[in-house]
């Protein structure tokens, strides 16, 4: 079932994006310090490029594996690029399943956002150890929505 593979691709992509952004965040902190203190050049910033490279390589591989198949299913490139890869709308039943899954995902938003918003309150306590905490929290949000979408799809399939 291609939706399982596509959901896994989406989840892995979001996690890799989180990893890459977290490593960029450290570099951004150094850069912000330089700007705030008006440090005279030359100055240096260290950045761990491994997560960024992995995210780009894996993302490219996912695109190469997925998009040609999606092009066959969705006919136009516009639909391939603009719609999430989890969307299966091959016929009326799949459109109905997508509708139900979107409903579940929307409902999950109302449960997720207050919890995630409240979790931001922990940031002052852990900002020294986990400065990229907001990135993780923010990416948790689409992850939960995708999982809710997938569970609904599988349940009704």
């Amino acid at each position, binding site marked *: 079932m291609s939706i399982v593979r596509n959901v896994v691709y989406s989840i892995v992509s979001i996690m890799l994006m989180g990893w890459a952004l977290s490593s960029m965040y450290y570099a951004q902190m150094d850069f912000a310090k330089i700007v705030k203190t008006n440090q005279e050049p030359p100055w240096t910033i260290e950045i761990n490029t491994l997560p960024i490279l992995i995210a780009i390589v894996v993302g490219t591989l996912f695109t190469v594996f997925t998009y040609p198949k999606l092009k066959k299913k969705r006919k136009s490139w516009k639909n391939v690029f603009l719609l999430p890869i989890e969307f299966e709308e*091959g*016929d*009326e*039943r*799949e459109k109905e399943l997508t509708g139900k899954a979107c409903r579940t995902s929307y409902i999950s938003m109302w449960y997720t956002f207050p919890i995630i918003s409240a979790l931001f309150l922990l940031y002052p306590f852990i900002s020294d150890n986990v400065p990229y905490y907001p990135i993780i929290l923010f990416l948790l949000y689409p992850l939960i929505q995708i999982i809710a979408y997938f569970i609904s799809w599988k349940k009704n*399939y």
Partner: protein
Amino acid sequence: MEIKNRVKELRAKHSLTQGALAEKVNVTRQTIVALEKGSYVPSLLLAMNIARTFNLPIEKIFYLEDE
């Protein structure tokens, strides 16, 4: 009340596979599977396409049944 159908029986009578029927009425095979299981109620358009494939009026294929 629920809507039942005779798709499986008629498909066998016409020697059609699920895939062949799906292709004729322009849906995925899984939709035919779900329809035969009774877990999916088709749209009027799909019901009419199925009726046309089997050369029967809709009410001979889809009918209401008390639970």
